[in-house]
């Protein structure tokens, strides 16, 4: 919580709104919660890790700076899986977050704190990051809207990296329009991020255009994934039917390399993370083990104590995948699979304007249910990580319930088709709430 700052920001926003000189925008004075991986100047930012306890960035992430400029009120930082690695927020180095719909269940993850905060009404909106589904899956499990934009849409500057080629920042909101407003505010070229795109961003003009005349792809492979709960499938099927009734044309599409996505993802993401997390060595910031006698010992003890089990697992996996003699068999092959998956999406989008599916194969599961089974945990992301590997935009929005728990409908769009994704989501939202 950053209460004193939030009060000062709220008062500044009041003055700005009272002036009425046009300096105020739609986000002026609106309070938000920030996932603890986005650098906020002067505010402890830990990435959910003990290794960064006490670390206060001397600068703002670009997305934070843009919201600050827009007059946002920052309420504080939200819990997440350590370095955004996880699908339940149980991997936090501090404590697990619970699902507001049922406190015995997880909120999803890794951005579970922001999703739960918005679902519980603690913040009007939240920011999260999505590397394999870390915005969309918790949005689905908490019954809110969550969007991962096209890779390159939002600057990653100041986002504590998990996997650089997959990470994107996006919003959690209660409505699709709010998601569009927040995303519009944080998008666009940033000279500090060489992977951010110099492309026009217009997410609002076509938002209410509906789905009439749009072709929506239903991927054959996505309804057959392992562990798909019947209740989830039923809710999603109903939602897709509603879209058809609203004027969309449904087409079956194929994403033939879907089965290989998980394996490729769990090579590429750990490989990048093994390098990205090397900077946490106890030398410059965050925690350091003071009992170490040698340099090597400082590294080993600081990292062993500072990182949790899942982070250590992925660092080791990634280190292995990049090692001489294994690089070609793992990293290089995974990159080839990634190219094939991107081609799958590109081909599918020749036949449709957007793809609709479930976000997560399951509803929120009980705390502890999957902590000892990493593979079961990884399967949570099987429907979302393809979007990250291909770099395409995706949103999750509530589409009813199963076993009394929220189900998420995922809408994926072609690269730079963020506006289309939002338009389809808004169309569903309109018929759902009608």
């Amino acid at each position, binding site marked *: 919580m950053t209460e004193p700052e939030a009060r000062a920001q709220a008062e500044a926003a009041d003055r700005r709104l009272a002036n009425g000189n046009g300096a105020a925008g739609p986000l002026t004075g609106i309070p938000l919660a920030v996932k603890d991986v986005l650098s906020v100047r002067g505010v402890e930012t830990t990435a959910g890790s003990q290794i960064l306890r006490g670390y206060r960035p001397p600068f703002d992430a670009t997305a934070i700076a843009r919201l600050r400029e827009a007059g946002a009120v920052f309420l504080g930082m939200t819990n997440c899986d350590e370095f955004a690695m996880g699908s339940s927020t149980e991997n936090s180095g501090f404590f697990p977050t619970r699902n507001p719909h049922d406190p015995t269940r997880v909120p999803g993850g890794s951005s579970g704190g922001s999703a739960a905060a918005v679902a519980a009404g603690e913040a009007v909106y939240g920011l999260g990051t999505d590397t394999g589904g870390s915005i969309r899956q918790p949005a689905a499990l908490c019954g809110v809207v969550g969007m991962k934009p096209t890779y390159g849409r939002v600057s990653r*500057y100041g986002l504590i990296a998990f996997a650089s080629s997959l990470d994107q920042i996006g919003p959690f909101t209660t409505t699709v329009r709010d998601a569009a407003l927040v995303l519009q505010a944080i998008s666009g070229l940033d000279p500090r991020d*060489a992977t951010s795109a110099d492309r026009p961003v217009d997410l609002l003009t076509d938002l209410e255009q509906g789905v009439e005349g749009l072709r929506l792809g239903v991927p054959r492979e996505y309804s057959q994934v392992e562990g798909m709960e019947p209740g989830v499938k039923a809710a999603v099927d109903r939602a897709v039917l509603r879209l058809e009734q609203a004027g969309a044309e449904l087409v079956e599409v194929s994403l033939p390399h879907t089965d290989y996505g998980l394996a490729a993802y769990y090579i590429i993401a750990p490989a990048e993370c093994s390098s990205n997390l090397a900077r946490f060595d106890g030398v410059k910031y965050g925690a350091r083990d003071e009992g170490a006698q040698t340099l090597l010992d400082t590294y080993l003890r600081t990292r062993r104590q500072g990182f949790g089990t899942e982070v250590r697992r992925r660092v080791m996996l990634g280190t292995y995948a990049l090692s001489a003699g294994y*690089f070609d068999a793992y990293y290089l092959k995974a990159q080839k699979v990634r190219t094939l998956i991107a081609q799958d999406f590109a081909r599918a989008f020749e036949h449709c304007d957007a793809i609709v599916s479930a976000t997560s194969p399951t509803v929120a599961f009980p705390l502890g249910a999957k902590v000892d089974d990493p593979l079961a945990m990884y399967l949570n992301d099987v429907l979302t990580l393809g979007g990250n590997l291909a770099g395409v935009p995706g949103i999750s929005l509530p589409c009813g319930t199963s076993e009394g728990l929220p189900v998420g409908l995922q809408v994926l769009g072609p690269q730079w088709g963020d506006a289309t994704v939002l338009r389809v989501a808004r169309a569903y939202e309109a018929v759902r709430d009608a």
Partner: protein
Amino acid sequence: MREGWEAVIGMEIHAQLATRSKMFCDCSAEYLAAAPNSSVCEVCLGMPGTLPVVNRRAVELVVKTGLALGSEIAEHTKFDRKNYFYPDLPKGYQISQYDLPLCRGGRIDVGGRTVRITRVHLEEDTGKLVHAGDALHTAASSLVDLNRSGVPLMEIVTEPDLRGADEARDYAVALRAILRAIGASEADMERGQLRAEANVSVRRAGAATLGVKTELKNINSFRALHRAVEHEIDRQVDVLEGGGAVVQETRGWSEAEQRTFSQRVKEYADDYRYFPEPDLPPLEVTPAWVEQIRDSLPELPEARRARLVEAHGISGYDAQQLTEDAATADLFEATVAAGAPAKQAANWIIGSRPAIDPAGLAQLIGLVADGTINRDQGFEVLEEAQAAGRAPADIVRERGLSQVSDESELAKIVDRVIAESPQAVADYRAGKKQAIGALMGKVKGATGGRADPRVATRLLQSRLDS
């Protein structure tokens, strides 16, 4: 080189690029005078969430170097991460180039030997450690200074084409001259802007296979480079002639002990887990950009050397000295253009590398040549002209420095010195011709150093020999 042996040497030279800002952030690249950890920002400190942005000027300087060396410039290239842990490497990886360097191939001709360039690539420099004590393993603590972290660095790697310590040094000198001529690097070894590593092995003369090599580091001057390579060749030959085997290792050069010493034995190859830097998109170097850079290339040292010999009739040695950096060669040409005779201009410039405008230097050379002042006075005037930024002729006039060439005036002094120095005169006449030096010294003393040495010597000799 000892009889029956041949040395095989390849060089890896790191040169800091002469850019205003660092490789991936906008910090100043001028860090030498800065207080520790003051020329830094969140990016070059490797703080969480920071991202690199490529310095376009650094890319241009590497391309320029490649063009000067006759390399092939890659149209599509990229950066890679080289992963290893060390406190001077704040991110835990160095952004470098692995399998697609900016430049491949090329050559430098050094004294009749063609040295093939393997590759030139772009990377970032690391920070610096200051150990409490001499060495890391005995230090109680170490301090980290990250001012140098992220300074643009280029690595130039050669094939194993060099055959001795002279060639290794000459190659480095020639490369420095090129880097300076094109403005790619200030390339001052003492300031760490140019760092040479030599891979040295020896083999029986005529052998087809290469011997086991060692990698020499810690080399801070051309002289040290020469000594280190020379010492290492001798050491390896000693080891082999004694029936031993050379161990593949990194060896440091100890300036104090004038010998190489084992730093680290390579039991297995380092695994840097290179992979493409995901924070940077691939780098495209368009042919149009390359042509634009080619157009900015100045005359290269080798061409300029030949032209100076041809146009001014100076020796190849002088031309070599003058073209070691572009500024020196520029001063020479401008001084000659201002009217100074080429040979004399070369002598003055090679000896003292004066920081003076060409017109002033030409004037000074003229004052010495026409006998207004002597050479010693010339150096004094030059010093003052540099310090005060004033014209040599004005200094000579104001200080009344013009030398005494008047024969009748000097004759009086010479007669007096001879009368007062019977011992020296006797010595001279007894055949100890060097005794004239003592007499000459007295003449100089009596004139406050202003005696024209040629006139004074002639007068002394005519009196002593008569």
